[in-house]
């Protein structure tokens, strides 16, 4: 879109756009109204309820937030949840980027098959994916069988109910969210750049870190954002693979809201999670814009 405007005479583009384009703007109204009623209003109410003093909705004040801040347990739950997101992002990026590079270098006729494998997790329900990891990570599971068969370990290692197991599972579950934006940016890169870098004497590592990766950063940042947001809120995987030992924010919120019926505190927890994720997302986004500007300039 930008390119078309830049290439054409701006005056012509402007004139062309006037009459029908103005009216087309009104087409956003129905969805805007829907979001106002069924998205912003509920979130506003959530913020309101988080300011109630007692679970019986008496009084107004920041007591619930004080309660949250006053207990170290709450901070550790929040910290563990955000850390889980970061760890998942790091693992998915470390194996996702090589897979993206492999995809770009693969022969054209193999690319559709690779793409199908990449979106495979998206096509299987999140419960199915979680179920698979129970079978793989369990005491008599595939991974323990393989490790013991190879003689790496002598007794089954415990993976279900641990953070390691959860990160492994989430890295599969969230992989497409990393790879799809990454591949869409990588496929727009000029292949000549890589050849030019090689011709100028750079080795393949140098080309990767100095040319390909910096130019793919917008896609990488977008992927990291989606993976982070999704793994932080992945309730099913967290409760089933993480098990009862790890309390993470989504389970904590759910427990407060539906078993303890403490809506104000559940709302407070939700607001804290919302704001923390928003802060991470905004920071990453700003970083992404900076790198985009760098890549363009």
């Amino acid at each position: 879109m930008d390119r078309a405007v830049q290439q054409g005479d701006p005056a012509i583009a402007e004139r062309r756009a006037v009459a029908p384009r103005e009216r087309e703007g009104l087409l956003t109204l129905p969805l805007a109204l829907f979001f106002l009623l069924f998205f912003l209003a509920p979130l506003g109410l959530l913020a309101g309820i988080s300011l109630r003093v007692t679970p019986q909705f008496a009084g107004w004040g920041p007591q619930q937030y004080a309660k949250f801040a006053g207990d170290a347990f709450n901070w550790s739950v929040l910290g563990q949840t955000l850390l889980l997101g970061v760890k998942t992002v790091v693992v998915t990026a470390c194996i996702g980027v090589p897979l993206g590079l492999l995809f770009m270098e693969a022969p054209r006729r193999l690319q559709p098959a690779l793409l199908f494998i990449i979106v495979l997790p998206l096509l299987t329900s999140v419960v199915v994916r979680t179920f698979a990891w129970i079978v793989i990570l369990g005491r008599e599971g595939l991974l323990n069988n393989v490790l013991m068969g190879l003689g790496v370990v002598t007794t089954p290692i415990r993976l279900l109910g641990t953070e390691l197991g959860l990160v492994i599972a989430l890295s599969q579950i969230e992989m497409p969210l990393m790879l799809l934006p990454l591949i869409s940016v990588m496929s727009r890169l000029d292949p000549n750049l890589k050849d030019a870098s090689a011709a100028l004497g750079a080795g393949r590592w140098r080309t990767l870190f100095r040319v390909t990766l910096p130019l793919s950063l917008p896609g990488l940042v977008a992927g990291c954002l989606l993976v982070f947001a999704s793994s932080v809120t992945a309730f099913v995987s967290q409760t089933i693979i993480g098990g009862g030992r790890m309390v993470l924010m989504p389970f904590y919120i759910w427990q407060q809201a539906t078993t303890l019926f403490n809506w104000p505190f559940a709302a407070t927890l939700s607001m804290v999670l919302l704001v923390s994720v928003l802060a991470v997302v905004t920071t990453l986004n700003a970083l992404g814009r900076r790198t985009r500007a760098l890549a363009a300039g």
Partner: protein
Amino acid sequence: MARRSTGGDISYRLVLGALAGVALLILVVPVLVVLITSFTDSRSLRFPPPALSLRWYRSLFDPVQSAQIHTAVWNSLVIAFSATAIAVTLGTAAALGIAGRRAWWAQTLDGLFMSPLVLPTLAFGLAALMFFSTLGFPLSIPLMILGHVAVIVPFVLRTTIASLSQLDRGLLDTSASLGAGAFYTFRRVTLPIIRPGILAGAFIAFMASLDNVSVSLFLAGPENDVLPIRMWSMLESTLDVRTAAVSGVLIFSTALLVVVMDRIVGLTRRIS
């Protein structure tokens, strides 16, 4: 100038090849494992299964034994179809209004409509529960549909805006100068061109609704149970092996749906 094949080149191939291999394994193995496990004869989730049988599929399709699951599947399908239909209608209209605009309000709306993708939707699920109960509505399937629309609209919006950005505005001017009205132009020019984008978005949105947990978790009740929540509680409480059979059915039907979608989207691309 010939490029030297250095140690760096070899290590590059080895390291990246190994990591990409791990990624491929992690993507493929779980799906295969589920499929194989679903044919187990055993009551446990041991892998590989000691013997193969169809007993869990038989149990799953038994109308009495699995009545709850069947109701949940039916509810999930009703919700996913309705929510997708609403999301496609509202989303396509909004995409037409937003695509290619630099105005502040278009950017703001775009950010708002896309925000469910990067926000913890679980917080929205709780918010929706509080909102509907405060208004005094009992939890029901229509409310669930409304809740799902908000979180699946971004998928429709994203693919539709992407396909609109490839639309040549000159075509619309030509159509208008030949005397076609705005709606006629939309139906005969714009729609055929952006249809693959809309359909792709609708497909992803449908899958996202079918698979949604974070909103359903709060809005589902005994009266409007949905499949992911039912499966979650089956796994949470007893590690019911029927979940493997449900998984198998889901994998097969999704694969079928993907093939059909590819035919349709590919077909429309050829026509346009």
